């Protein structure tokens, strides 16, 4: 692994540690990013995702560890010697230059011939649909337009990897949603590897080929959107991605890929373990709100409780259920035309869980 600097990976991070004095920003991070991939680093603020991006860009040196770009070690190279480009969070457009001068900046530093610079500027401005504003200055553009200029400027020199540092966070919701589709389209059209940093899980889930969930300077899990949502590896991932219900359990019996667990109310349920488990250990089960169905209190439901509150979400309804031990469960149901089944606060309900949707976590 330590010499596995294969050229098939766009970026390879090996045991990178970054300390700022006593603050540990990155602790032994290793990951690989494939060529042509839309790779997202997702985590709460302070988790080290931006630091890792800046390590790849060359703005931060590492305390220890190695960084490879298509098999070449780049750790120690200054940013201007690395064939990667960055879209900055606040765009960092050169205020005194026009849009086309901003976009041409990198090409001119790379000594592209003049005709080629002009053609390339035109090409990327077309790609981000900004050709009409080429002679404007950044201060005369809206936030969304500035964002496109930043993208065009970073794409123009045809980087091997494009780094994006929360580029959508300054935009309003509608624009952000439109830009998600746009970014994905541009990534697919150009075939450039995108490394995208965000704290917004919806952004990560909708755009990424693979996601690295980070917290406390460490990678918690890497996988496709579906994998990290449906098969979280630990409690942090289950809790951070989407909403989930976590229940204390004790592992009673381990079968083939399934563990039988005992809930605190004495009932048993089957869960898929997220890793190695042993009989008798305490853990949690994670159940997504949409994997639970409610019925009028009967005898055979897994849990029983009382409806505490209903939150109408348009596409569905979120029920907050109070359990006898005081814990609260979230249950989401799709809106249907038959509202006869609707529950009211105070109703006693039984909760049934879809088999196969329960995840056992023991960290």
């Amino acid at each position: 692994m330590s010499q596995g600097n294969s050229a098939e990976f766009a970026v390879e991070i090996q045991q990178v540690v970054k300390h700022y004095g006593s603050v540990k920003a990155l602790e032994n991070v290793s990951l690989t990013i494939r060529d042509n991939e839309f790779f997202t680093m997702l985590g709460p603020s302070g988790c080290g995702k931006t630091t890792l991006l800046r390590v790849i860009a060359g703005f931060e040196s590492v305390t220890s560890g190695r960084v490879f770009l298509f098999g070449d070690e780049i750790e120690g190279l200054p940013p201007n010697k690395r064939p990667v480009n960055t879209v900055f969070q606040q765009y960092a457009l050169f205020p005194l230059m026009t849009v086309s001068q901003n976009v041409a900046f990198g090409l001119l530093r790379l000594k592209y011939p003049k005709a080629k610079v002009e053609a390339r500027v035109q090409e990327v401005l077309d790609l981000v649909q900004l050709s009409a504003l080429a002679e404007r200055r950044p201060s005369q553009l809206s936030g969304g337009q500035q964002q496109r200029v930043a993208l065009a400027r970073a794409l123009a020199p045809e980087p091997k990897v494009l780094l994006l540092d929360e580029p959508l966070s300054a935009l309003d919701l509608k624009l952000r949603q439109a830009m998600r589709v746009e970014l994905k389209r541009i990534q697919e059209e150009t075939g450039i590897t995108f490394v995208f940093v965000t704290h917004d899980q919806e952004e990560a889930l909708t755009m990424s080929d693979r996601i690295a969930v980070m917290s406390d300077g460490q990678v918690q899990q890497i996988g496709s959107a579906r994998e990290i949502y449906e098969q979280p590896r630990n409690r942090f991932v289950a809790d951070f991605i989407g909403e989930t219900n976590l229940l204390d359990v004790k592992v009673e019996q381990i079968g083939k890929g399934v563990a039988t667990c005992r809930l605190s109310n004495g009932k048993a349920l089957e869960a898929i373990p997220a890793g190695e488990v042993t009989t008798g250990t305490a853990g949690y089960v994670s159940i997504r709100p949409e994997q639970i169905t409610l019925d009028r209190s009967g005898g055979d439901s897994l849990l029983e409780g009382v409806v505490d509150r209903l939150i109408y979400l348009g596409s569905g309804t979120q029920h907050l259920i109070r359990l006898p031990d005081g814990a609260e469960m979230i249950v989401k149901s799709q809106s249907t035309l038959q509202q006869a089944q609707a529950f009211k606060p105070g109703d006693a309900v039984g909760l049934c869980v879809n088999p196969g949707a329960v995840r056992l976590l023991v960290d």
Partner: protein
Amino acid sequence: MAGATGQDTGQEGPGVYAEVRNWLLAPSWLTIAIFMLMPVLLMAIYSFLTKEFRGGVIWDFSVASYDQFFLDRGLFGDEPPQLQWAYLTIYARSITQAGVATLLCLVIGFPTAYFIATRPASTRTGWLLLVTIPYWVNLLIRTLSMKFLIRDTGPINEWLMAYGFLDTPIKMINTDFAVQLGLFYSYLPFMVLPIYAAVERYDFALTEAAADLYSDRWTTLRLVLLPTVAPGVIAGCILVFVPSLGAFLAPDLLGGAKNFMIGSLIEEQFKGQSGNWPFGATCAMVLLTMVLVAVFFYARQQAKSTRAGS
């Protein structure tokens, strides 16, 4: 500025407040009138009066001072007039000296300001204080100290000779260099402070963006940092150049007799019994006109480039 604030308060309470507001501005107007407009006006009037031999003026209109400044009519004043070079030469020398001093201030002041502006915010005030500490001492004392420092038997020459670097002292005192050094020392903070203010506002993400786009340090400085902080640099240059032009302490004490500058020329006209007040006023008026014309052209240039930019 005053007009803009005036409009705001005028909207809140028309009538009564508008009148009060004008009265509140009166002290400012009075201060400007007494301490800025009056002296300049007085100087302009005096430059057109006739000189009295023991200093002072006779209230008779005359253009004799301007004639003396610009035209050479020979020793007895009866030859056909030619352009008088004596004073213009002093002005040209002053401009050169002030220009070199400004350049020195820029070369030393810019890195200093950049250094301070890039320290952690909590320590910047301390650094700025260090820059200003020498200025708690009177300018005359500081200029005299400089004289003792660089004279032939001063510590610099003596040390260099004691350690065998030199056989004869370097001639520093009474040279152009001494004057430039004195001016540089006198006005350095006027360069540092505006540049500091500009660099402090500068967004260093732009430097990162430039580096990310394959720009080396010098190119980033030339194409990104300098254009962005240019207003601060220009303000610093004006603040150093203009007072350097009229300075007389440094040229007098460090430059000796052959490095006569505008400041000394004017000073001489008002000193003792040998003075010539109208001529001194004329010298000052010519200097003022030159500076005003330069500032006017600069301002017009700025306005033009701002308009082109937007």
